């Protein structure tokens, strides 16, 4: 079973330490929930793992093999916060390139794809586009998936539809997911990591979110 290891990540902007002692480990078959306040470096950490942001120091490996840029050769896929699909190309053509052929039959059952596969992204609403982009990344060929705010800009019912899909795909992949909608993260994750003061805290129970000041209470 493949495992992703992220260790000794350090990142500073204008003399301010954003990340200084980051460690996390993700096995295939596991969903890691990454929580933290605004500006604590969650997105930066995902970009460093993916390979699009240079850290001052980092060690990222898959099966102990150092990975300089995670995206090369489809090792790691990343859902950014912004839209990423190119305009003017049919959705089916865009999806076929990224989606894992082994997961294609599952992917084409997704309503937003089934209804709009022969159109371009200009025919989608903002929520539909976000849903489609997230589903493409979840079903991609990569061994490890990084999801940056997949539950933002979608309706609660769509979020509820995502969670079983994430769980199903996690049988074959390792997934790291971050979002401010912590309920959804707690529901879908096997392990929770809190990023606070540039340091990762591996939580053993949800009450620690209160201990570390991320939440005032859990409903």
């Amino acid at each position, binding site marked *: 079973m493949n495992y992703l290891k992220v260790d000794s990540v350090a990142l500073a902007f204008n003399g301010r330490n954003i990340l200084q002692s980051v460690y996390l480990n993700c096995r295939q078959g596991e969903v890691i929930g990454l929580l933290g306040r605004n500006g604590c470096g969650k997105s930066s950490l995902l970009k460093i793992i993916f390979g699009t942001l240079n850290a001052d120091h980092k060690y990222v490996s898959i099966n102990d093999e150092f990975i300089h840029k995670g*995206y*090369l050769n489809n090792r790691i896929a*990343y859902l*950014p916060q912004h839209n*990423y699909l190119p305009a003017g190309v049919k959705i089916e053509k865009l999806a076929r390139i990224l989606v894992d052929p082994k997961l294609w039959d599952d992917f084409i059952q997704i309503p937003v794809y089934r209804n709009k596969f022969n159109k371009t992204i200009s025919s989608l609403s903002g929520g539909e586009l976000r849903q489609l982009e997230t589903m493409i990344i979840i079903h991609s060929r990569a061994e490890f998936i990084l999801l940056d705010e997949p539950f933002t800009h979608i309706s609660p019912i769509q979020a509820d539809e995502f969670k079983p899909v994430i769980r199903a795909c996690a049988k074959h992949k390792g997934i790291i997911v971050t979002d401010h909608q912590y309920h959804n993260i707690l529901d879908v994750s096997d392990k929770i990591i809190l990023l606070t003061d540039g340091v990762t805290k591996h939580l053993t129970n949800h009450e620690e979110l209160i201990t570390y000041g991320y939440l005032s209470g859990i409903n």
Partner: protein
Amino acid sequence: MSYLRQLLWYFYKPLFIWNLAFSLGYLEIIHIYGQKVISYGFFFKLLGYASTTYLQSYTAKNTYMYYRNAGYSIKRMYIYVYTIDIGIYIILLTLYLYYA
């Protein structure tokens, strides 16, 4: 690798007209000033590449993630499409010189 040609076309499509305009524009300059200015052609093309790269990174930077998620670096995509474009330019130049 099987999807590389498709990816290159999606990446090249927004740049194609712009780069073709630079190629045809320079052929027009050769037509006006004669073959003595041919040697400046590649400099003219480089200027075109710099402007299209800037334009693309300004207007379509978000889509870079699509190509990265397909497993390719953006630097590599630019190298591929500009190599293809310079090939098109050389073919057009050869045809022009042959029929001129």
